[in-house]
């Protein structure tokens, strides 16, 4: 009877009040994901509004530094500055077809909230975004962006006042207003069908990579490297290549300040690397928890990776050995952020800076030809970077440590 399982992970662990809406969503998703009319409409929006396909760029200086050929899949050029719009447009369009009147979403960094506010404005729907009070403080420009685009941004003060608490609160709203409201989850997490549906909406990234890779290099890459918070950019880049065993898939999590956890806190967001089996936010997956099953507060310099769980399908792919988990810590990510900016004139978001850091560290052990999913741009992180680096950056930087 239980649905949406990936080797035992996944499923639907949600209150009964929401189950009928989830069943309805699953039906609609299955119907529309095979409906040419819907898919054409979505493709057109992604192209004309979002700016797809995004560029595939050979990064010459970075390649030289790393000692292997590195390409960037430039989803940071998507409207809004991150891959999040792929999913938000898909889900808001689906909600509209389902006759829902109101959109709600959680956001951590504000990127998914921004994308959902955009998609809601573009498709003329009401939108409310829940955001941890602490994250609102850290990401003020995104709060303002969402409000400019007509969304209501509601602070969440409970718990650690970050992403997981925002998800809790959005679920509570959904359980209250489920009849006319659709919850646009921002990553490949939550109850079935969200992990599969978000993956499908994001897998346009991987399809483009395949085509562009064949065009540019006449072959598939040796490795694809993506950061993983919940894992939507990750699954989006990987899904197309699951059966191409010769392509290595590397998921890079936030190592934060340390991989050591205590009873209440994990100073990292490395659920694929150090988490274990549990149920969080509607799905069974790898989570950061203590011995009793209480969820640990996670940490990362990058708000978008700062989450105690991870998508169930990604957890299964790691267990199967198909996806290799890795971490990059706060300092490595900040260093990579600077290196890519200076080498290529591309300021990455702190999230994909973790993927860049992994490539800087692993070098040609990743093969002769590597693709990094550059899923977001760094404008939102300038304040964090200024605090960390300081305004005077003329000394000793860019030397790789």
């Amino acid at each position, binding site marked *: *009877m*239980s*649905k949406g399982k990936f080797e035992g992970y996944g*499923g*639907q*662990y*949600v*209150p*009964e*009040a*929401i*189950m*009928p*809406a989830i*069943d309805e969503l699953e039906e609609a998703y299955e119907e529309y994901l095979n409906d040419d009319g819907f898919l054409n409409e979505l493709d057109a929006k992604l192209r004309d509004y979002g700016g797809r396909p995004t560029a595939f760029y050979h990064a010459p200086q970075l390649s030289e530094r790393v000692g292997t050929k590195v390409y960037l899949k430039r989803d940071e050029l998507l409207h809004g500055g991150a891959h999040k719009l792929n999913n938000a447009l898909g889900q808001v369009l689906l909600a509209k077809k389902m006759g829902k009147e109101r959109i709600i979403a959680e956001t951590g960094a504000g990127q998914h909230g921004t994308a959902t506010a955009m998609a809601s404005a573009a498709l003329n729907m009401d939108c409310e975004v829940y955001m941890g009070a602490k994250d609102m403080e850290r990401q003020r420009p995104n709060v303002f962006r969402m409000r400019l685009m007509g969304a209501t941004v509601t602070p969440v003060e*409970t*718990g650690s006042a970050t992403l*997981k608490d925002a998800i*809790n609160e959005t*679920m*509570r709203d959904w*359980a*209250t*207003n*489920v*009849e006319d409201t659709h919850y646009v989850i921002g990553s490949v997490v939550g109850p079935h069908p969200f992990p599969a549906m978000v993956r499908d909406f994001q897998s346009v990234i991987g399809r483009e990579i395949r085509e562009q890779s064949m065009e540019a290099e006449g072959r598939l890459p040796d490795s694809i490297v993506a950061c993983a918070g919940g894992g939507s950019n990750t699954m989006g880049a990987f899904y197309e290549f699951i059966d191409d065993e010769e392509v290595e898939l590397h998921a890079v999590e936030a190592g934060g300040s340390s991989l050591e956890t205590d009873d209440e806190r994990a100073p990292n967001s490395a659920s694929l690397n150090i988490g274990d*089996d*549990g*149920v*969080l*936010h*509607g799905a*069974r997956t790898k*989570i950061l*928890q203590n*011995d*009793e*099953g*209480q*969820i640990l507060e996670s940490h990362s310099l990058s708000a978008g990776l700062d989450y105690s769980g991870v998508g169930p399908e990604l957890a299964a792919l790691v267990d199967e050995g198909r996806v290799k988990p890795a971490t990059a810590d706060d300092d490595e990510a900040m260093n990579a952020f600077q290196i890519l900016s200076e080498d290529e004139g591309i300021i990455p978001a702190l999230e994909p800076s973790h993927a860049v850091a992994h490539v800087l560290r692993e070098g040609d052990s990743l093969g002769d030809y590597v693709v990094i999913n550059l899923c977001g741009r760094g404008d939102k992180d300038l304040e964090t970077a200024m605090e960390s680096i300081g305004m005077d950056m003329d000394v000793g930087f860019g030397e790789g440590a």
Partner: protein
Amino acid sequence: MLELPDEPALIPYFVAGYPSVESTPDAIEAFGEGGADVVEVGLPFSEPIADGPTIQNAITRALQNGMTPDVYFDKIGEADVDIPLVCMTYYNLIMKRGVDKFVRDCKSVGIEGIIVPDLPVDESDALYEACEEHGVSLVFIVAPTTTDDRLERIMERVSGFVYVQARLGTTGARDDVSGATYDVLRRVEGYDVPKAVGFGVSKGEHAREIVRGGADAVVAGSVFVEGMEDGIEEIGQKARELKQGALEGGQEAPKSDESNV
């Protein structure tokens, strides 16, 4: 297995560890003295997605006070009462302890039923089997949105009582009885299992209306938790008010014994 009395029942809920770890057995006893027929004892989980602000805050405090599953079973074991207890918690804590062990631990301290608000019937195989094996009732929630085919599946597995969720949303004390209560009660009327209504119940008058409307029991949580901020003295009185309301409602209810054979 959990059994409700023949008369209209009161099922209060509170969060173990709130206001303090030490007060936990005392609260259970105070409810018993106030006329409660079953006490639902919440085992606090860090992500209570089905709960409103009152219970969320109590859960946060309880965790800060050091409430853990081990302490929970110890403290419940200390309570000196004759009425059955029900454990309400979220699934991750059950899974982490081991489903079978969790159910055995419940049984060993007088917990006769388990309610898991984030475990729909679809995912309940493991817990259902363990409950069957150890003779513990698994209580399910029926919501205003529950469809007919889901209702069927829930009713195949439910025991002890069915928890009728009176309104959409989260737990929290309200000022009125929602119209949805009666709709859901009507839909479960034909099933041979006691019906308990919860979500929003806060007054004797609510209890009376709900029982008059066909319920066998009322569940109230947030109203008690609100009153426990400064201690547990108030809860006995509130319990008496709700129990009294339920009994009055029972006298006014049209008799429909044939559904309860």
